[in-house]
């Protein structure tokens, strides 16, 4: 499957230095996890976290979810060790903190390519989710989002962002509105997904729901999570409504007819159905299938046409 189309409603942070939490990764129903080697891990445990993460990844072979590793910032002395230890154990991708400039992503891209050559992997195997978490990061985000074909999503880190702005984060989030919009724009312009920041209060399900509804309206496709208890709420918000599913099925039927006629465009009730409409429909149907609402296998050929 095109890694850019994978469902990433919920990306759960798991501290890399906590074996009890690592071993529960297969158990929870988030679409992905981000094993954290950065902020959750104290300096004295950086090496232990790398070893634990590597060991966990090696045992977690039949993966029910995507596994990213959040490495330390490339400007720290930990980042290269993180990559060297963890990449041979085959995470699906890297969450890159402090992606302030496109050059940071490019540097990571180079490191990943080197690792892939060393490990005998296909170039481009490891994906990247750059995290935009400062004012300068926001201003450069359009270019950052396009800095590597490995990028599958652009993430927003509100905690670091508000710190860099010297402002308080609130539950209603007015102070994040422009930043979020900017991240979504940059992501959409690059044709990648947009992942919103964490909602830190794991006991406030209503607050989480309100925020998730907001970011879904803004165009985010998923959210980073701090606690497995948040998964259900986020999935519920992203659960497609029946009319959305019905519309998407109609679109797929229409494009099937179009492909049979040898064209990539067709009119459905007066509206044009073409690639972007089909892509959106495909995403809705994949989401619906992930919820068990429908059984539907979206073929790549249908979306993109035969070569």
């Amino acid at each position, binding site marked *: 499957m095109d890694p850019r189309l994978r469902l990433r409603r919920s990306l759960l942070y798991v501290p890399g230095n906590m074996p009890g939490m690592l*071993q529960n990764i*297969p*158990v*929870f129903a988030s679409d992905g996890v981000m094993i954290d080697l950065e902020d959750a891990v104290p300096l004295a445990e950086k090496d232990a976290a790398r070893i634990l993460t590597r060991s966990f990844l090696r*045992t977690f072979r039949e993966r029910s979810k995507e596994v990213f590793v959040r490495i330390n910032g490339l400007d720290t002395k930990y980042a290269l060790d993180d990559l060297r230890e963890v990449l041979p154990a085959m995470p699906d991708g890297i969450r890159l903190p402090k992606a302030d400039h496109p050059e940071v992503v490019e540097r990571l891209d180079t490191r990943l390519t080197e690792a892939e050559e060393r490990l005998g992997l296909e170039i481009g195997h490891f994906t990247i989710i750059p995290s935009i978490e400062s004012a300068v990061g926001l201003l450069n985000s359009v270019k950052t989002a396009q800095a590597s074909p490995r990028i599958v999503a652009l993430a927003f880190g509100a905690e670091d962002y508000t710190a860099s702005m010297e402002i308080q984060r609130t539950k209603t989030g007015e102070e994040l509105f422009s930043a979020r919009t900017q991240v979504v724009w940059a992501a959409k312009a690059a044709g990648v997904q947009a992942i919103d920041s964490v909602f830190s209060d794991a006991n406030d399900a209503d607050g989480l729901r309100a925020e998730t509804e907001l970011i879904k309206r803004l165009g985010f496709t998923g959210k980073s999570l701090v606690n*497995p*208890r948040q998964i259900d709420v986020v999935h519920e918000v992203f659960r497609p409504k029946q009319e959305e599913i019905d519309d998407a099925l109609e679109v797929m039927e229409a494009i099937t007819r179009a492909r049979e006629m040898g064209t990539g465009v067709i009119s459905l009730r007066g509206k044009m159905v073409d690639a972007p409409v089909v892509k959106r429909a495909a995403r809705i149907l994949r989401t619906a299938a992930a919820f*068990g609402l429908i059984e539907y296998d979206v073929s790549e050929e249908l979306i993109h046409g035969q070569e």
Partner: protein
Amino acid sequence: MARNSLGRDVPTTWRGRQYEPYHDPFSRMPDVDRGTRPLVRRNPGESKLLGSLRAAVERCGLQDGMTIATHHHLRNGDLLLNLLVKEIDGMGLRDITIASSSIHPVHAEIVPSIRRGVVTRCETGVNGLIGELASKGEIDFPIVVRSHGGRARSLVTSEVPVDVAFIAAPCCDETGNLNGVSGPSACGSLGYAYTDARYAKKVVAVTDNLVPYPASPVSISQSDVDYVVTIDSLGDPKKIVSTTTRITRDPAGLLIARHAAEVIEASGLLKDGFSFQTGAGGTSLAVADNIKRKMLAQKIKGSFGCGGITGYFVDMLEEGFFRTLFDVQCFDLRAVESIGRNIRHREISADLYANPFNRGSVVNMLDCVILGATEVDVDFNVNVNTESNGYLLHNTGGHCDTAAGAKLAIVVAPSIRGRLPIIRDEVTTITTPGETVDVVVTERGIAVADRHEDLKKELLRRKLPLKDIRQLQSEIYALTGKPRPLEFHDEVMALIEYRDGSIIDAVRRVRE
């Protein structure tokens, strides 16, 4: 020694008594009558009030070799058993059997009296240090572990003849009418003491709250009580009931609870008239919470909740999810408060609750019970008595009673506890036979007993993580490794009695 139907080697004669090996959950039925107690005449003007516990022990004629009983309504806050044993010790009595409804860690105070031969036999399961010491061979204290229903049965059939029952009475009058709903030691239901009041040769009500006649409501009545004794305090109220019982916040526990609720829904039992029991643990309450939401969404009205009752079940009663609560023991203050004022919150005896030999107990009417486990094996046998170190640390409670009674017995447990896998080839000790356990739910998957093919199909249809129990076990072993088996001496230190009186397992002294 004989091998019972579950392959366990159990004694047929032990410490001077005969025992029958377990065969199956539903057949055994000894051909005996119910026990009796002596007739007593009380004329007007005769007083039952005695000045001290010692006076009560004397008046009841307690002698060497006899049996006493107390009750664990006051749980780990109970002071009565300790006071009593101290008194008996001081009077020079020896070789006394304790047939209380349970022993708690607070009762470790009686250990010196065990060592001195004051109390020498234990016709009840134990929680905590006494079990540990017996497991290590540091005290010689033969223990017969019984379920709530099994204990009631053993009194009703006179298998365990109680000479004097001392009933802690949080509210009592001079004639012995008593209840648990008020007073400084209020504990709510007195479910465990009822059977003693009917079958013990002598019954002493011990109270720290003597009220003017008549005490009301009457849980145990003056017609059953021989003597009334007042003491300063029955117990430590903080340890009698917990102020709150809470739904877990542990994500794995919540996941287990959700799976369990999905299993209940898939079983088809969740419909009008649904009856349910769950414990006071965080995961059990989370199951109740999930069930409540499903009942709300589907407009289902249940019939009854039973067992030990929590504030959570009180809410469900008051909000109309159940018509009745059957309460053997109150787990928290809200349950205590409710049982005193709500007529639909019924106090029931352990006999009515779970005795297999009484023309039908409440557990037989249960649709579903949620149970815990320290270990489960691939045949669905469950251990709640011994810990991973082999020590006998827990009493059975209603575990095997409800498993046998309920249409659907679900064991919920984390797949890994400490470093140890929950699913074993063989459990250390069988508390509850796999024949009565239907489903095991862990955060890593759901295992269903082979006799429930339809339920398996339904779980698969609902895309729930159904796994063969051996597959689930091997997934857990992949993380934990296979634990080295414990080593035991041949010497049996406790018997695990099944609810019908047969011996389902024996606990042996741990080889350290």
